[in-house]
């Protein structure tokens, strides 16, 4: 019996060591490396890389793109999950599959589809050129590509949550004389707020960090259509490694902040799910 227990303990610590080693080599070390490399030439060089005009305009564009695309997908996500979770209609599961579709598409293809629509040889290309409207290699193209890749995030988080919570609360509010909008604002929104925040958090992280799709549609015009991730690439390819890692560290810190907030929100989501299950 003793030998058996010892064996069990040995196995446990062996498995833990493998897990720690694997996560360390693949996840923790890259993260540490970003921060160490960014600061390897001291704080002055770090600040210089971040306060350089191109870096600042990249930061501005990244924030602007996220500020436009996240609310768009937030409204869509709430509308889609209201329709899908609270009602039964034909083609519901097909609709869910279609909403998930952008997850299965390579980021590069997500950019390509907009080039095929709005590029010079694209479907609407000639018309856009005639009317002097710039979509590709400009802000609208970057926003469209970002909205595409972040499309499912909010809806995906809310649909299961709203489904689990059912529609009893809303029906009660309506039968007590509340209007549809009042019901949504006073009953549904408080019920789903943590799930909503969770979805927005992930949506925002992806919107600020998207690389492939934005890279295809942006045209890489320095100081104009360069987002932070694209700026990292340019600096890296110019062998300005410290500057590249300095800009990357801002994105990494943003990712860490996202993970921390995600942890906090996650427990609340579990709580609101449980309440839904017991109601």
């Amino acid at each position, binding site marked *: 019996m003793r030998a058996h227990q010892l064996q*069990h303990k040995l196995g*446990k610590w062996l498995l833990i060591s493998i*897990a*720690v080693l694997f996560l360390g*080599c*693949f*996840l923790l*070390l*890259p*993260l540490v490396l*970003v921060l160490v490399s960014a600061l390897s030439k001291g704080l002055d060089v770090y600040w210089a890389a971040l306060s350089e005009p191109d870096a600042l305009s990249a930061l501005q564009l990244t924030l602007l793109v996220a500020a436009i695309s996240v609310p768009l997908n937030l*409204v869509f996500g709430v*509308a*889609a999950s209201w*329709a899908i979770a609270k009602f039964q209609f034909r083609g519901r*599961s097909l*609709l869910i*599959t*279609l*909403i998930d579709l*952008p997850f*299965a598409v*390579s*980021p*590069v*293809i997500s950019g*390509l*589809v907009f*080039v*095929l629509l709005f590029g010079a*040889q694209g*479907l609407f290309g000639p018309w856009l050129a005639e009317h002097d409207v710039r979509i590709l290699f400009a802000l609208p193209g970057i926003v*469209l590509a970002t*909205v*595409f890749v972040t*499309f499912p995030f909010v809806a995906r988080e809310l649909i299961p949550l709203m489904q689990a919570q059912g*529609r*009893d609360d809303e*029906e009660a509010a*309506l039968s007590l004389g509340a209007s*549809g909008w009042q019901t949504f604002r006073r009953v549904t929104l408080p019920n789903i707020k943590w799930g909503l925040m969770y979805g927005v958090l*992930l949506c925002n*992280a992806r919107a600020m*960090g998207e*690389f*492939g799709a934005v*890279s*295809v549609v942006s045209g890489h015009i320095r100081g104009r259509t360069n987002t*932070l*991730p*694209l700026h*990292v*690439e340019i600096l*890296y390819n110019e062998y300005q490694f410290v500057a590249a*890692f300095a800009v990357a560290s801002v994105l*990494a810190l943003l*990712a860490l902040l*996202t*993970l921390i907030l995600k*942890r906090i929100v996650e427990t609340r989501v579990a709580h609101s799910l449980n309440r839904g299950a017991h109601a």
Partner: protein
Amino acid sequence: MSAVLSISAVQLSAPSRRQRDVLPGLTLTLGWTLFWLALIVLLPLGALFGKAATLGFDGLYDALSAPRVRAALALSFSSALIAAGVCAVFGLLIAWVLKRYRFPGRGLLDALVDLPIALPTAVAGIALTALYAPKGWLGAPLLEYGIKVAYTPLGIVVALIFVGLPFVVRTLQPVLEELEREQEEAAATLGAGPLRIFIKVTLPALLPAWLTGTTLAFARAVGEYGSVIFIAGNIPMVSEIAPLLIVSKLEQFDYAGATAIACAMLTVSFLLLLPLNWLQGRLVRPVH
């Protein structure tokens, strides 16, 4: 009592739901959903397949039969397959360790699993490259054993493991949580060893989620771009992935070539996703 009440509530509300719905907003929300879906997702993807249709079968076949294209597609799918396999094995191990064992730093490790989802792929790309480069923290010791990671197909696999891992771990964790230990304990009292219990009792229960997570990791890895292009070396025929080839075709204004590769990738991915959705539909039953 509450069970009786809820049953009668269902019976009461079921017919009324069909006649006239008390909840408002279906037309508005469904209308907006369909409009937005059509505008953002279906129209652009339609443009892709429309473009492919103008090429015709012969045009597509020609574009796809170029040796460089074939090599890129083969590399993308094979490295994604290997990475998904590694993620499957280690993802299972990590999910198991995080759920079943208590040890210092467990919470931190658990939070770390989500890092690839939150970290921009370009950042992951340059970090992994610097880490596994010949002079990197891990690249240098590995090189002493003759293993070159960065700027080789092996580097691609490393990057794809990075992006794929959370999918396996996070898909397995809720199932592991629900898994009833009584079954395992019953098997133990009947004299089964830990390995035998794992294979005969635990693994079959985990299998659907394990497959789902692995397929998700694979689907994500096939299309991955940002984290791969820095570490890959991007040598045509050797370490050039399909998404990168799409980008270089676009830079040469070869829209047809880019479209053909994109269609090939999407078709295979969809064929993978269809059975996955079917599996999920069977898997996810309401947990009350």
